């Protein structure tokens, strides 16, 4: 029983990380129907951005977590946002009216570019880099269940930020513009919505969330490498598809489902941890067979 509870907790933490990244996939898809495969790399770059910020701090500030930690978040998020904006402006905007496959392949190119750029230009990025120990140490113990404080923080941030995002999109004026653009960009334009602004804002939101995820990843697992974007990006993309691409709620729930399947299948299914990925994709395939639009995806909209 205690093992089950512990594995559930592990799964929730893993799901929280995936959710933060999955939101970026699903929002961009919702607005411009682009699967932004480079989004995993934005997450990776943010993690290195946070690390670089820490390295650049003067020695006494490095020893003050209350200052260093928020600055790392700011640094990581800033790097993520800048990368996302440059990516949107120079890689995707020129292709906005091109056939859909073109931006998709471009996204792959951007992904490889970012990964190699960090490998070549970030000092010592050819191998794993340890993350600074400025995060709260120790565990939250609830009976038999132990969760590191960084894991708790990850879950709180992930759930909190997705609620904020959902509320913003449902309630605010800009959120309404985003929904309108998602439904019908041409009509939205006629109604006075500036699509460029909406798209740029969408990329910024995705990058901020990926930035938070990137720095938290480093804090939670204590070291980072250039492959982390690819691995977690695939999980996040899968979560977005599972939940229904375009749906905020779907992406978050899909992410938690994936986290839980991974840990529970590793514990209880034949083959153990060797085959945990298999079960994630078995569930994905089953869901797509019976609900091609994903768990919370809307059925195909008819476009004017």
């Amino acid at each position, binding site marked *: 029983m205690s093992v089950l509870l512990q594995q559930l907790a592990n799964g929730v933490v893993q799901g929280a990380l995936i959710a933060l990244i999955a939101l970026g996939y699903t929002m961009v898809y919702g607005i411009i129907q682009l*699967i932004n495969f480079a989004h995993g790399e934005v997450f990776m770059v943010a993690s290195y951005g946070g690390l670089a910020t820490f390295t650049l701090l003067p020695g006494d500030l490095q020893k003050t977590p209350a200052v260093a930690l928020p600055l790392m978040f700011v640094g990581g998020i800033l790097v993520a946002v800048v990368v996302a904006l440059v990516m949107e402006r120079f890689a995707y905007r020129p292709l906005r009216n091109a056939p859909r496959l073109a931006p998709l392949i471009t996204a792959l190119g951007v992904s490889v570019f970012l990964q190699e750029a960090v490998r070549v230009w970030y000092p010592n990025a050819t191998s*794993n880099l340890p993350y600074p120990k400025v995060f709260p140490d120790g565990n939250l113990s609830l009976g038999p269940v*132990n969760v590191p404080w960084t894991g708790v923080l990850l879950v709180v941030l992930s759930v909190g930020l997705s609620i904020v995002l959902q509320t913003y999109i449902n309630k605010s004026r800009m959120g309404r513009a985003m929904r309108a653009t998602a439904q019908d960009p041409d009509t939205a334009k006629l109604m006075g919505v500036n699509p460029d602004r909406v798209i740029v804002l969408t990329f910024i939101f995705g990058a901020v969330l990926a930035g938070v995820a990137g720095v938290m990843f480093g804090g939670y697992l204590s070291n980072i490498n250039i492959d982390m974007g690819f691995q977690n990006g695939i999980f996040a993309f899968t979560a977005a598809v599972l939940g229904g691409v375009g749906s905020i709620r779907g992406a978050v729930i899909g992410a938690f489902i994936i986290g839980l399947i991974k840990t529970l299948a590793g514990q209880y299914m034949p083959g153990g941890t060797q085959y945990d990925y298999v079960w994630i994709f078995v569930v994905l395939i089953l869901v797509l067979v019976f609900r091609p639009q994903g768990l919370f995806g809307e059925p195909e909209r008819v476009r004017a």
Partner: protein
Amino acid sequence: MRKHSVKSAAMVGAALLVLAACGSNKDEAGGNNGGSCDTSKGTLTVGVVAPLSGNLSALGLGIKQSAELAVDEANKKCTVKGYKLTVSAQDDEANPAKGAQAATKLSTDPNVVGVVGTLNSSVAQTVQPILRDKKIPQVSPANTNPSLTRGNDFLTAPKRQFDNYFRVCTTDDLQGPYAANYLVEKAGKKKIAIITDGKTYGEGLAAELSKQVTKKGGQIVGSEKVGEKDTDFSGVISKIKALAPEAVYYGGEYPVAGPLSKQMASAGLNVPLMGGDGIYDGKFIELGGKEGDLATSVGAPTESLATAKAFVEAYKAKFGKEDYAAYGAFSYDAANAIIGGLAKTVDGGAWDESKRDAMLTNVGAYSGSGATGEVKFDQYGDSTNKVLTVYSVTSGKWKDVQTGEFTG
């Protein structure tokens, strides 16, 4: 439209895999010119195949630079008469497919007389046959999987696999049991859990350890696998923790082992993590290896060997740092075995393709006193030097606690 996008997503997934499989093959040339020796007959090349980029590059770099040092010294001493030697180092990224590309590239160069490498046993499996077809001797500084020289039935029916393959380090059928004896008898850990990364090296090592643990009265309480690119091990750790092991043995390398050890501690599983030569690197500690963690490695500690002193000093003089890593001294000896074999083969004459058979024989018969002690090969191509050392993390550093040979 949505269906369409799922379809294109699948295509992209496939494209991603292809992209991941391709990538670039970096190549670097090294080795210095040969001073005042007679080099009128041209240049011959010693190949190096090792991970020069990626997670294991710290080990690969030590291999490459140590081979360069050996070649440099040979050039200065005019060891191979009439020829200048150079090093051609190829990156295998610790990936068997990349290793095959690197080996193919070297094997098509008529000036390549031998290859130092590889680091990974899994990469050696693809490199061996390519080099054999061209009769190019391969001397590995680091492959410890016993089947590479003696076949899958290495204990009961050993049979030489590749007549061009040699190694200067000992093997996992000794390393695993040596570690098991230390764990069970010296450290008194009877309940051992095993985690492996599923690769040739880690699987083989863990299997050999398990047999000996059981033989010595210990118990393997569980056995799990992790992915080489995994980063969050909480699932595996919770599963293992429920089995209450007294120690965890990890078959694999430090990029996973370091974080794994750290995550074990933070999940409340405060038992030592032990591994083989693949985790014996300073990076393991940097990435989260904790006090009391253990590793076995091949040979005696480099710093303690009288024969190694000269190597360490020369390495420092040439590269300014002591980053020869776990296999530097072995790589130096491997390169010298090739150079020694070559000197005997050329022997004042000229090198040509017809000398390749003689070259294999001469490398096999090589014997010398190297940085790791006596360098000699047995009838399978294995090193006759069977020394192993147990190290433990003490005050943030690897410290040797026991050196010897496996005696049963």
